[in-house]
Every structure is written in structure tokens, then in C-alpha cells.
């Protein structure tokens, strides 16, 4: 707040009319951007200027603008969610850039996440994976008293660490194989670590992995780029846990 300064940028933004059209980079100049402005607010300003010129604004996904809904994406200068650690794009601020920088903005690039328009992509593949087994089969109404299940603090905390995934897809976007292993492993681990999740553990991991493969996500080659770019710092040790669960499900 105190060290505000005005900045200017050259933006190279991916524009694509719709899923079928061919896209291209378009260059925009933007000036008088406050260093305290968020990245998406900078795009708001650009869009306002485009509308004033009667041009079509850049389409991008966003909603909560506080780093939790997982709707914003954007590949910024070669990094999902841009040049800062443990954030979503909506939490990125212009103070992380230098005055006069050229900023390249692309959508997530992964075959299972087709572009809808400009920077907006279709991530329903993630929903489909969850629908295969990312749940505990319990109907409303039949549950026992909440404190009748005791869960030690450590597994409860580890489960929460995994459950913090926001489903943004940065892990897929950054992976050279477009692997969804970190996303799937986070959900598998969230349930695998809790006693409530054990009865369906084998079925869950089998089905979710099969769906992930079917939808065209690649395999994991242990480069751990996903962990580096995850806004919620989900650990790759979850992938190890998922592999163990998967193996046990196969042999058991």
C-alpha cells in the first residue's frame, strides 16, 4: 500500500474465437498500472480499454478473486498462475513484475482441457474423475454422532493437506505429460487417510485412475513440477500414496 508506483507493460495475449478456430497472440500496450493492482485487475483495465475502443474484451475464467474457488487459470510467462509461489492468478500482483516487462499470457495447454475461447478452458474432465469415485457413499440422514469416529491428529491433518486442492489444473498445465496425478492423488489421499474412506478405498483408486487415463491425461515421470506450481502446496508424496493404494488395490 505504501510503495505504490505506476508501471507499463507489453502484453502478448492468446486470442481464440472459439474451440474450433485457430488462435494467435495479439500484442497490447498498457500503461499507468499501479504496482498494487492484481493481475486480473490489470486485465480488467485492459478489457475496459478494449470495450471503449469497441473491441471484444479478452475472455478469462475467474470468480472468487481470493485464491480459493480455483476458477482462474492463465499461463503467465511460462508459469501457471505466474511468477510467484503458492498462489492463484487472482492473488498475483503487478509488483511481481518489472516496469516495462513483456508479459505472455496463455491458456492452460493440455489436450484434456480444450480452449473454449481466448484464455477460457474446459476443465470438466476433473469433474468426471471425481464422479468416478471422489466421494464416500453415504446418503444424507444416516450418519452416527460425529465424535463416534476418532481420528488421530496427524492423519487428520495430512488428509486436510490433501483436501486443500482447489482443482485449478495448474498441475496438469505445468506437467510436460499433462498428467493429472497430483489432482487425483490429492483426492485419493484425502479419503485414504480417513477411516470413513477405507471401505471404498480400492474401488475408488481403481476407478479414478482408469478415468484419468481414459480422458487422455498423461503419466507421471516424477519431475515434480506439479508440486512447485500448486497454489495450495499439495505434496507429491500424495502421488506415492496413490501409487501404493493403486498397487494394493490390484493385488488385493
Amino acid at each position, binding site marked *: 500500500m505504501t510503495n505504490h508506483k505506476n508501471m507499463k507493460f507489453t502484453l502478448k495475449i492468446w486470442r481464440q474465437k472459439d474451440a474450433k478456430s485457430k488462435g494467435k497472440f495479439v500484442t497490447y500496450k498498457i500503461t499507468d498500472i499501479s504496482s498494487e*493492482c492484481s493481475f486480473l485487475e490489470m486485465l480488467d483495465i485492459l478489457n475496459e480499454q478494449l470495450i471503449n475502443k*469497441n473491441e471484444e474484451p479478452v*475472455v478469462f475464467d475467474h470468480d472468487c*478473486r481470493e485464491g*480459493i474457488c480455483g476458477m482462474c487459470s492463465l499461463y503467465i510467462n511460462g508459469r501457471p498462475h505466474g511468477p510467484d509461489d503458492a498462489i492463484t492468478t487472482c492473488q498475483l500482483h503487478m509488483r511481481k513484475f518489472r516496469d516495462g516487462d513483456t508479459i505472455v499470457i496463455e491458456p492452460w495447454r493440455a489436450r484434456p482441457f480444450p480452449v473454449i475461447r481466448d484464455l477460457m478452458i474446459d476443465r470438466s474432465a476433473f469433474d468426471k474423475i471425481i464422479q468416478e469415485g*471422489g466421494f464416500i457413499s453415504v446418503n*444424507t440422514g444416516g450418519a452416527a454422532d460425529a465424535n463416534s469416529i*476418532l481420528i488421530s491428529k496427524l492423519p487428520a491433518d495430512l488428509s486436510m493437506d490433501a483436501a486443500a486442492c482447489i482443482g485449478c489444473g495448474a498441475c496438469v498445465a505445468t506437467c510436460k505429460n499433462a498428467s493429472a496425478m497430483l489432482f487425483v492423488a490429492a483426492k485419493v489421499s484425502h479419503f485414504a487417510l480417513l477411516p470413513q474412506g477405507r471401505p471404498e478405498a480400492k474401488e475408488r483408486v481403481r476407478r479414478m485412475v482408469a478415468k484419468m487415463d481414459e480422458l487422455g491425461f498423461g503419466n507421471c515421470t516424477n519431475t515434480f513440477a506439479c508440486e512447485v506450481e500448486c497454489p495450495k502446496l499439495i505434496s507429491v508424496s500424495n502421488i506415492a500414496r496413490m501409487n501404493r493404494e493403486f498397487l494394493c488395490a490390484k493385488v488385493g
Partner: protein
Amino acid sequence: MAELIAKIPKGPLTQKWSEYKSHQNLVNPANKRKLDIIVVGTGLAGASAAASLGELGFNVKNFCYQDSPRRAHSIAAQGGINAAKNYQNDGDSIYRLFYDTIKGGDYRSREANVYRLAEVSGAIIDHCVAQGVPFARDYGGLLDNRSFGGALVSRTFYARGQTGQQLLLGAYSSLSRQIKLGSVTLYNRHEMLDLVVIDGKARGIIARDLITGKLERHFGHAVVIATGGYGNLFYLSTNAMGSNFSACWQIFKRGAMLANPCFTQIHPTCIPVHGAYQSKLTLMSESLRNDGRIWVPKNKEDAEKLRKGLIKAKDIKEPDRDYYLERRYPAYGNLVPRDVASRAAKERCDAGYGVGSTGLAVYLDLEESIGRLGKHVIEERYGNLCQMYEKIVNEDPYKNPMMIYPAVHYTMGGTWVDYELMTTIPGCYCLGEANFSDHGANRLGASALMQGLADGYFILPYTIQNYLASEIKTPRMATDRPEFAETEKSVTDRIEKLMKIGGTRSVDHFHKELGKIMWEYVGMGRNEAGLTKAIGLICALREEFWKDVRITGTPAEVNIELEKANRVADFLELGELMAMDALNRKESCGGHFREEYQTPEGECMRNDQDYMYVGVWEYAGPEKPYKLNKEPLHYEEIEVKQRIYK
């Protein structure tokens, strides 16, 4: 004047809900399959309702405007969810939760609904744990609790600072399971644009596919609206950018009514506004008030120096700090309800003690708690909040106190519903923040999650059957009926009208202007002159909008500007009604503070004699004034008193 029948069951308060359930009509399993239910919204209320109705065997269609149901704004709720479990043995009970909620709402909510909410609160926690929601636990493996404003007990369950996220992902997982089983069909990136009413009953919706721009007709034996509140009307709020009230405004125009629209909640602990380009305000959870102390300097000179950046908060010695909440409200201290805390912050800033470059901020200081408990404990409790703060403000809240200021957060007002959560349109229901029933004039912290899930998991799945039992002979209707065609035509006409304007100003321009008017005159402090002025300004702005808004592109494609224009057009009407409601209510209660009606100490002065009613507004037709109906509030169990937190 329409008749408002709340359908509150007879009998003693504690027995009403069981009495209702014992005698209501039910639908048998074979018939459930033949009944279609449309649920609009996939937040806590919408997703939990859609999942539970699917589990029961109904055929459910669930709509959301985001790319996935998991994005709904319930996800952003941080601090926790209340439940009367009394796991801490600190004297909690269903009655106490009920009482705190009524009192917190400043005696402007419906007693029977609130009692039921408290009654089912425990079952929510049981169900969420069974779903695998990773609530915080202590070393013995039992569930942990924290305290929230307006309560003397610890009854708030939490999952770090991401409780809303975990509860929503729980509901989303149940919903996903039903989608796979085929009982729920999901329509993501779809937005409801009108309600179809046939022979006086809700029978479907017109929705726009936000990718292709195509309008679609969907039939349902009943329609459930769970689309959240209208805080985004203020432009700057803690709501998500897409949060809107259009579904509720559409049903309002089709015969549903709107209750207490002036009751908005201004949350005391948000990151202050810092620039004209700003798009939203970020909440810092109320849970921070468990361990954070709120203060401003005692001396104006210090405040002045802080504003100019000549000194830092750390330079102010302990005796020179004014912990004004602890000073004014010794019994509840930093944990007074939100409306009280917000007004107190405004009072200090208006009096010249505010800090930050704008003078519109107060400190929330974790220093003492870090000293007492250690940084690791504070980190474990609020780590993600502190990280959020650091990313936005570029300051370390473990080292310097956070700067906070009130911001629009929640709306207690909403669609009028009866005890069954049905609106005044038969077959049309309204759940969660979108309805008005449970929070009166002020909502207590950690009660929004409770209400959303109570409505969706444990109330609607019962009450909707009482209606659907008489619909089992109604066959699925074809969507080529004239009622569908006419409703679709009115949507097409409106879109065409918007596109044709071809003006010079963006939708955001109008939204921001509206927000400024609302914050200035219909915000934390309201008075007759200001409200009257606001109505004039809003009407003029609305006129300008319909003459000068510019929407680029076409309706037959992804068109964000068109989506926004539809929503802002509705906000421009709702804003006027909010100001009218605030003008009508000549008293101060909860979040509604009329400056003319306050005690010498600056507290709310209620007028129970004249205003102990729900203000229920009715749409009378285009260009006609809205009609005010009244639902009187009767308190059988509770003695109505002045709210005192001292």
C-alpha cells in the same frame, strides 16, 4: 394485498419440526422417479439439496454458471460452521444456539425457523464427518471447536481457514456421486434467465448456455432457487465476481416476494480498499477475533503520523492503544457480533483515529496471542489467512498488525419463504442466503454455512415432498407449451434490447457507479435524506444504463459483457428497492443502522412497537410501485429485549 401464510406448525416451539415431519405428505419411491426437480445453484444449499433429492430418487437437474459446481462462492467461507453439539461441555444447547441466533439477528427473524435450524445443526456435523470432511481435531482424535461472535460458548467446527471449501467439496462429492448414478444431471456454465409459471405453479426455467449462447427450456415439477445473496450489488464486496441475484429477481417478477432487502451485513474484518481499479474486497475471517485484538491509537496525533507513514504500529506503546471493542463491550470484547464491530470501527475512523494511508482502517493484532501461544499455533490456526493477507498487502501479519476495515459480506434479506421454504409461487422454493428466514437483521458468524446445509440436507428434502405428493399425477410437460415459448420470448426480447443499445459505457462502469451510491447512502449508516437521494440517483443511473451501456459481441457466443449486463440491470432495480425498504424501516436494528434512531451511546434503537415485522415487497407490474406487505413477528419462547453485549 397478498396474504402471507408462513405455515408454521402448531404446538410448542420445540415440537414443531417433529410434529411437521410426523404428519407431512411423502412421495413413494416409485413416484419419486417420475418427478423432476430443478435446482439452480451449486453452493452449500444448492449442492446439498440436489444431492439429497437425488439420493431420495427424484430426477434432479442442477444448474451453475461456473465451469464446475465446486466453484460456487460458498467455497470462500473461511471460519467455520456452528452446531449445538456441546462437545466442549461449556453449556451449549439447541436452545442456546437458537437464542443466540435470534438475539444476534436483533429480533427480526422467525422464531420457528430459527429453532429448527438449531435443532438440525448437530446432524449436519454428523453427516459432514461421514462424508469425509476433514474438520480440525485435537490430539485425542475428537473434533475441535472455536468461538465466533455473539456467543459465549465454543460451538464452531472448522477446517483450518477453509471450512466453506471443505463443506462445499463434501456436498460436491455427494453431488458427483449422484451425477454418476444418473439421478442428477448437471448443467454447468448455464445461467437461469427466467422462471416458467404454468397455471400458477412453477414448472420450469429458461436457461442460457453460456458457451453457445443458446436459450434452453427446462421443465420441472418444482423449481428450487439457491443462488446466494445480493452483496455484489455494492460492486466492492467479499462476494465472487459472478455472484448475482438475478434468479431471485426473476422469480420476484413472476410472483415471489422479497423480504427485508435492506438487511445487509457489513463484515468488520476485511482488507481495506486501496485503489480505484479494485475489483473486490477480501475477507479476513472472524475467527481471527479469537486470537486477534482490535485497536486504534488513543491519540489523534499518533493516528495522523501512522497515516503519513512516519511511524509504525509497533511504535505505539501499549498504554497509547485503544482496544475499543474491549473497552466498550467488556463481556464479549473482540467477539461482539459483526454489525456492532463494524459500526465501532466506522465510529473510530470517522472520529479521526483511523490508520492506513486512507485513514479507513483499524488494526487487528495477533502479537499478544503469538506471545502467549507461539507463532506455530497461530500459523496452524490461521496460516492460509495470513498468507492471503501477505499476498495482497505485501506485509507480514505475524510481524505487523493487520489493517482491516468493514466491507459488504452477506445479505440477510432475500426471497420470502414460508416454513416449508416455499416462496409465494407454489412449487418454487428458495434456500440458503437467497432466502430471508433465519438471520433477522444480522447474521452471526459461522451461521451461513449452517443454514445453507440445514436447508439443503435436512429441510427441503422433507418439505418439498409435502408439495410433490399432490403432483404425482402431473405428467412431465413438453417444453413446446405456449408458457415456455412466451417466457423464452421475453428473455430473447430483453437480450435484444440490451444488445441494441450500443452505447458508450461498459457494464462495469455502471456497476461501479451503483456500488458507490449504495455504499455512500445505503451502507453502514443510513438516514432519510441520504436514502431519498440514493433512490433518485439509482433511478437516473438505471435510465442512463438503458440508454448508454455498450455490450460488445453477439448473444450467440461466449459473451461475458452480456452476462454482466443482465445481472447489473437487475441490481439497478434491486438497489432502489433496498433503499426504499431502508427508508421505510424507521428504526435501527442489526445491520440496518438509521442514524436518526440511536441511543446516546451510539447503539441501535429498535422500534418494536411499529417495526416488529418482516417487510415483504411485492412486484405489481412494470412501471408500478412495489407494494409493501407485512408479516408480523411473534415471539412465544423468547423475551424480546434490547441487545446488550456489554
